[in-house]
């Protein structure tokens, strides 16, 4: 198990060299198979993508670089993330505005799998980027919630 002071948790990035000085965090989301139970939580601050949506989000990003309008890009990202996250019309500040982050659809669990103070992964964490202990925990959670979909969401600290 990890040392008491470590937030590395279950993360085993593919390289030992840091990619940047931004920190990174990885969250596990257990998406409920039905919408009638669970918690609505905020999307991780500065989330890059999830393991299940990264490839598709990259395609949208490349299209943006090749001239897709930002508005159209934003719509594509919303569509890609829609199985887990939707635009926030749920949590409103007492000043009357909705927070910019998206919110989850109902989840049965959410958990911080680990965090680094530097960025070590150029892309997003997937199951293969977890330690053996991390994979065992992921499998345990999948066993507990058999009909749920698990997502790993990678976020940067900017």
């Amino acid at each position, binding site marked *: 198990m990890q040392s008491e002071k*470590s937030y590395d948790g279950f993360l085993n990035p593919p390289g030992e060299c840091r990619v940047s000085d931004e920190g*990174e965090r990885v969250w596990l989301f257990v998406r409920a198979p039905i919408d009638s139970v669970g918690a609505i939580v905020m999307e991780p601050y500065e989330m890059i993508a999830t393991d299940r949506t990264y490839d598709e989000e990259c395609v949208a990003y490349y299209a943006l670089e090749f001239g897709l309008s930002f508005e159209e890009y934003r719509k594509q990202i919303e569509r890609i993330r829609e199985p887990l996250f939707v635009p926030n019309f749920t949590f409103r500040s007492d000043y009357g505005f909705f927070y910019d982050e998206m919110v989850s659809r109902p989840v049965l669990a959410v958990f911080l799998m680990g965090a680094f103070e530097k960025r070590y992964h150029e892309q997003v964490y997937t199951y293969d980027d977890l330690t053996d202990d991390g994979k065992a925990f992921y499998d345990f959670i999948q066993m507990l919630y058999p009909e749920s979909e698990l997502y790993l969401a990678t976020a940067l600290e900017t």
Partner: protein
Amino acid sequence: MLQEMGAPTQLIRERMVDFPTDGVGRDGTLVWLLAYAGQLLRDSRAHVPLEITTQLLFPADRFVGLDLTWEQHQKRYTELLKSVETDPVLRTNYLTAYELAAVEAGRPHLEISTIEHPQLNRPLMIVPHLYGAFLIGISPVSYADWHCTRNNLTELGRELYERVKQILPSTKLGLLTLRGTEPLVPLVLKSDTDDA
């Protein structure tokens, strides 16, 4: 949890909470295992390397109990009832005596949030400083004067409890019991709003 929900979906493979056998209502009950970042409970300004916590939000009237604060909560509730010499639905600052006692006895594990929900008219309670949360129990009935403690966990529930406890530094675990089985707050989609 298939049997408990009376639905064709298996949300939780095996029972992790032993609920009482005698229910008193049909509101339903949820139990969440909470993993707090303990250093932030002790000092909310404590240095942590990154924004590594999340939070749960739910309407105040769904709160039944948190094992970490249950005794103080009940004590404060009794004090409030004595002090007002009236019924338990006295509203103080939009909270019932039960809810007010929960918040006063619950800090820093539990607070009233400034965040609002466009479809709810009750204040939201917030459980802050969480490494995570796990829904571990769903019952279609509600109970009189019952909240989940470690003693109510099954072997599988205890296994999850012990595993979560060991993963991240200063983890402090709690068991949150809520009324109702619906999502903690309603999800509002863009199509539900006027500007859709």
